């Protein structure tokens, strides 16, 4: 388990689970992104679930960091899913005109882990 600042990152099999519980300041968000990517590189994680149930506000900066983290992880071969977005956050992002493109979403941690498993299975099933 690794942590940077106040964002704990758990390993569940070969999937990383990061739960963001606190209000994110920009520097923490940046450090989080860096930490996740380094951890993926180090562990070869095939899945990443970012749980943002604890975030009551996501502005364009944080949304961009989350989206980019997901995209970067995907480039590194990791299936990334953002889960638990709150209704007020989703409404605010679409009203602002921000689109979180290139990132998968799921309702909660369980759904996120299930999605990651399915994607990994599909990839193996399809044959490399």
């Amino acid at each position, binding site marked *: 388990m690794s942590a940077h600042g106040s964002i704990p990152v758990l390993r569940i099999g070969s999937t990383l689970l990061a739960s963001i519980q606190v209000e994110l300041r920009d520097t923490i968000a940046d450090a989080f992104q860096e930490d996740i990517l380094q951890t993926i590189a180090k562990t070869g994680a095939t899945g990443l679930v970012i749980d943002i149930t604890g975030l009551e506000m996501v502005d364009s900066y944080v949304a961009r960091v989350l989206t980019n983290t997901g995209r970067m992880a995907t480039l590194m071969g990791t299936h990334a899913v953002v889960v*638990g977005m709150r209704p007020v956050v989703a*409404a605010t992002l679409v009203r602002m005109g921000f689109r979180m493109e290139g990132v998968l979403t799921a309702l909660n941690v369980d759904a996120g882990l299930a999605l990651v498993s399915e994607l990994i299975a599909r990839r193996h099933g399809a044959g490399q």
Partner: protein
Amino acid sequence: MPLQYYMEKLYLDEAEVESRRHFFEITADDLTRLAGLHSFAEKHTDDIVEDLYRLILGHPEAKKQFTEHATLVRVKQAQRDYFLGLFSGRCDLAYVQDRLRIGIAHERVGVPPKWYLGAYARYLRSIFDRIAVELPDAAQARAAYQSIEKLVAFDTALAMDTYIAAQLGALERHQAAIRELSTPIIRLYQQVLLLPLIGTIDTHRADQLMEAVLLKVVEEQAHVIIIDIAGVPLVDTKVADHLLKTTEAVRLLGAQTILSGISPIIAKTIVNLGMNISAMHTKSRLAEALELAFEIIGKRVTSIAKNHPAAAAEATEKS
């Protein structure tokens, strides 16, 4: 409805009150004159209110309105307050609020405008007679009467505004109730929601809908929501845009939206407008949307074999 409601609906703040004072030509002189007549008013208030009630009780229809004794007493007191209020020397926000409270009391009892507008006219006649006695100097009497007349006109405008605002308030509540009834979000099945939209969708309603949808999806942890628009008469760019926004927001939560009830007209509109709705699942029939929803959550509807009494409807898990 509380005082705050009327203040809001009538945009009543200091600036608005000043604007009205200006238009009704109520000057500081008027107010000073009226304050100076306060003791005159106190002396005659009982008589003048009795004048009014003689008028009401002498009129069969009006009398019916006030036959209940408690009502009569309460309204009489309100009338005394109203009358004396004319001579307070104020015409500010606080004065307006006092007037509104009296209007609200009338509204609650259900007094229609013809009675209290008729009452104002009765007051003016009663005052005219007595002012001539109190102020023998014709010029003074005239000035006093005019000041009173201006303030009564100001109050009449407020009374009308209150009445109209109350009617509009009732109308709005009915409309809100209709909206509520026409947009229930139904839990169709575990993890599947259905929102049958009926009626026109304006921006305000669309905003409310999106919020209600998002809250319900998270509350139910629903994987799919079917939005059926067969009951929406007009689908233009704005409506399509609202639906797109809602779909995107639902996706951010981690769920999917299926839009059903796409008629040929709506299909033509959307394509001809060049809108990109490739991100949405769409179906023409609700039944098809339902099948897709089940597929998304990994279920399938199958037929029960005929002549098999013990068979129960089974949902087959798709692996």
